[in-house]
């Protein structure tokens, strides 16, 4: 079989060799480990069965069987060694990759994060209005495991308990005070007046449904001692699949975009997840608010990655050359001190530098520039320069180490010959050393480019993408690179989270990085053939 490796260390008949069977200890270890895995798998399968998640159940069962088959059969030794790593790789790298692809074609995000059924329920619960002239329920606020419930006494004197999402249930063993109002129930702690005040906000949020059907209405309180009946202002008509507002009479219908919309185009807050085809990709390239910033961010991402690679490589190579001299005193000290930034955690570097460069209180302005107010991180151009300088600080030691290693492995005789022929040091460097060096270092430069293309930490910690771009309402800044933009869209605090759009952008980034990597690896192959 042809392999990528030179076959010299490996006699070709390896696959035929038989290993002796396992020892007792090995067998025991195998049984125990496989037992643990299977026990866990059975537990998961039972939970999935109870939750009626059939597709996942089938998949999990198949994986469990496969694992057992791999380890219980006699042959297939390579699979036994590869399976654990590949399992995690498939679930948390390959699957999430594919899943990203799927999410990119949905409207998943804030307001669209569940099924239509859940959305209908949520809308009914959220749109509640007090029923005029409805009776008052006397209540005590009770607490269990940090959750507040209403212990209610209805006008007829019947006592029930319920909490948000957990409908009222009649209880018989509650203690009542002289007025007949239920005050205590076993298993619950009754809140005193000052505690009610302290937890006001949470108690106002409590919405206790009368039954599982949201149309029956709910109980809410405004003072912690009486509750009133609230009923949904939006009523769902299952047959017509519409919501009707009981007060205005406006009818909201399924728009096909995962929301209920009135004829005037008014949307109800909660929607559900649907497949939207290429809409997210189209949005990325056409929506005014996104297209402009996206182009800007993409250009900057390329600039940032390219300049970062070139600047760190140039400095690293220069230093490697400068210190590639025998008998240079203090060389070891220089080297150790110089590689310290490489050992410093990258996320801290960004934060520390953001302090150094702080315009008002930072060391750089106050000490180096005598109190000048230079906006290092808030002026778009200066912020970009700052990001590049900080990344140079972080990255040059790596290149220095790599170049030192590569320089030392260059054949000495070529140098010698060139020197004999009277080549100047510069000429020697550019025509002999550099090309030879590039052959070995080029793949690392490409890897470094790909890494910097997604170098989240330095940007996020130093400038948080800022300063903000003025021409867009999206939360995008002048130093944002693609990956920080994706993070902001998916988990940012600005406008609603949009998982679909974020995933679409991820997919686009992936294709860019993959294309560049493939092209440049081809180029370096060509480079290798020349020499």
């Amino acid at each position, binding site marked *: *079989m042809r*392999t990528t490796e030179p076959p010299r*260390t*490996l006699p070709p008949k390896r*696959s035929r*060799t038989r*290993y002796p069977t396992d020892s007792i200890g090995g067998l025991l270890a195998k049984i125990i480990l496989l037992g643990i895995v299977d026990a866990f798998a059975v537990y*998961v399968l039972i*939970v*999935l069965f109870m939750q009626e998640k059939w597709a*996942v159940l089938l998949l999990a069962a198949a994986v469990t069987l496969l694992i057992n088959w791999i380890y219980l059969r006699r042959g297939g030794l*390579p699979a036994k*060694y*590869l399976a654990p*790593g*590949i399992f*995690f*790789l498939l*679930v*948390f*790298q390959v699957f*999430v*990759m594919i899943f990203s692809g799927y*999410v990119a074609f949905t409207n998943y995000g804030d307001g669209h994060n569940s099924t239509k059924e859940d959305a209908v329920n949520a809308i009914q619960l959220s749109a509640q209005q007090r029923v005029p002239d409805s009776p008052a329920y006397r209540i005590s606020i009770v607490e269990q495991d940090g959750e507040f419930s209403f212990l209610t006494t209805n006008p007829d004197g019947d006592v029930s308990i319920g909490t948000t999402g957990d409908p009222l249930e009649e209880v018989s063993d509650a203690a009542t005070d002289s007025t007949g109002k239920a005050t205590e129930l076993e298993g619950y702690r009754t809140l005193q007046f000052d505690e009610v005040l302290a937890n006001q906000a949470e108690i106002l949020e409590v919405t206790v449904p009368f039954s599982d059907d949201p149309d029956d209405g709910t109980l809410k309180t405004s003072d912690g001692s009486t509750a009133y009946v609230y009923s949904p202002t939006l009523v769902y008509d299952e047959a017509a699949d519409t919501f009707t507002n009981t007060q205005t009479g406006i009818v909201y219908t399924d728009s096909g975009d995962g929301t209920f919309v009135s004829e005037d185009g008014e949307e109800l807050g909660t929607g559900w997840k649907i497949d939207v085809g290429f809409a997210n990709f189209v949005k990325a390239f056409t929506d005014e608010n996104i297209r402009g910033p996206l182009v800007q961010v993409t250009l900057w991402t390329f600039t940032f990655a390219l300049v970062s690679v070139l600047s760190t490589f140039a*400095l690293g190579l220069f*230093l490697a050359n*400068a*210190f590639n001299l*025998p*008998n240079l005193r*203090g*060389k*070891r000290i*220089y*080297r150790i001190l110089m*590689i*310290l*930034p490489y050992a*410093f*955690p990258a996320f801290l*570097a960004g*934060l*520390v530098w953001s*302090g150094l460069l*702080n315009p008002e*209180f930072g*060391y750089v302005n*106050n000490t180096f520039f005598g109190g000048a107010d230079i906006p290092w991180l808030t002026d778009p151009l200066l912020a970009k320069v700052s990001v590049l300088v900080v990344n140079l*600080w972080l990255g040059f030691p790596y290149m220095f180490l*790599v170049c030192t*290693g*590569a320089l030392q492995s260059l054949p*000495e005789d070529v140098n010698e010959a060139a020197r004999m022929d009277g080549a100047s040091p510069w000429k020697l460097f550019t025509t002999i050393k550099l090309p030879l060096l590039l052959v070995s270092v080029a793949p690392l430069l490409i890897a470094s480019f790909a890494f910097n293309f*997604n170098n989240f*930490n330095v940007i996020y910690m130093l400038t948080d993408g800022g300063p903000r771009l003025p021409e867009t309402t999206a939360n995008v800044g002048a130093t944002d690179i693609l990956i920080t933009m994706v993070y902001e869209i*998916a*988990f940012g605090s600005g406008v609603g989270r949009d*998982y679909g759009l974020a*995933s679409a952008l991820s997919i686009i980034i*992936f294709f860019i990085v993959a294309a560049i990597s493939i092209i440049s690896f081809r180029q370096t192959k060509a480079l290798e053939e020349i020499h």
Partner: protein
Amino acid sequence: MSTETSTAVLTGPGESGGRPVEPATERRRTFGAWFREKGWRHLVGVVTTLFAIFPLLYVLSAALNSTGTMAGSNVLFSRIDVGNFEQLFSDPNRPFGKWFVNTLVIGVVTSAATVFLGALAAYAFSRMRFKGRRFSLLSLLVLQMFPQLLAVVAIFLLLNFITDVVPWLGLGSQVGLIMVYLGGALGVNTYLMYGFFNTIPASLDEAARIDGASHVQVFFTIILPLVTPILAVVGLLAFIGLSSEFVIASVVLTDPDSQTLAVGLYSYVGQQRSENWGVFAAGAVLAAVPVMALFLYLQKYIVHGLAAGSVKG
């Protein structure tokens, strides 16, 4: 001492080949000649060293200065006390001690598991011949182009689903986070190790097998001890990478008690940089010291690994 041995490797074989310089000639030379040959190198060395260590000195100075604000830390080492460190460990809303332990535990467990899973795979690739071997090696390389960072939304949603099934493995769980990290256990690590495994002569394990050793015994008692350097490199690089990992950890770990240093320390200064500066600096120093110490202690392995990587491509 470690630095002695490590720098011995740093200054490597290439340099020992240089011709010895006779002290007598050196003394006779003019300053100009000395500067052209060596002096400028010292100049470059001093300037670069200052650039490299200046931010580190700054953060150390700020950490030791309990005036606490950013403005107060602008004269390096003007005050030295441990007030910031005391404050760092006394804020119950920002449990620095827990973050530290969390980071260590997650980092050590994940990098140990990464090394083990990678070594298993590298052993299979290096010592066995099977169908799809070349394809698997290539796929690993290609998959590396899609960093997990890009799939953070999907990871969030997947863990969200897992929360419904097995709550202690889902969002907010450190075990869940470790599993996510292990998704990247193969890939580049396997490549590094695979290359190194190939340099161990196969005759060694053949001899052992003839003596009746099983494949497991060969792996644990013959191969693993011989490849310790690369295991250290991979483990250390994994640990350093993990100690800085912010994105996935910030999405998965929501409860302050379960967070890592990267997520926690960011929350310290995420909103208002200048206020908590001194305490943050103290946290930064404590967070960086173990990683840097480990790095310097093992640097001969790292440098060797990097250099080997660069030469072989």
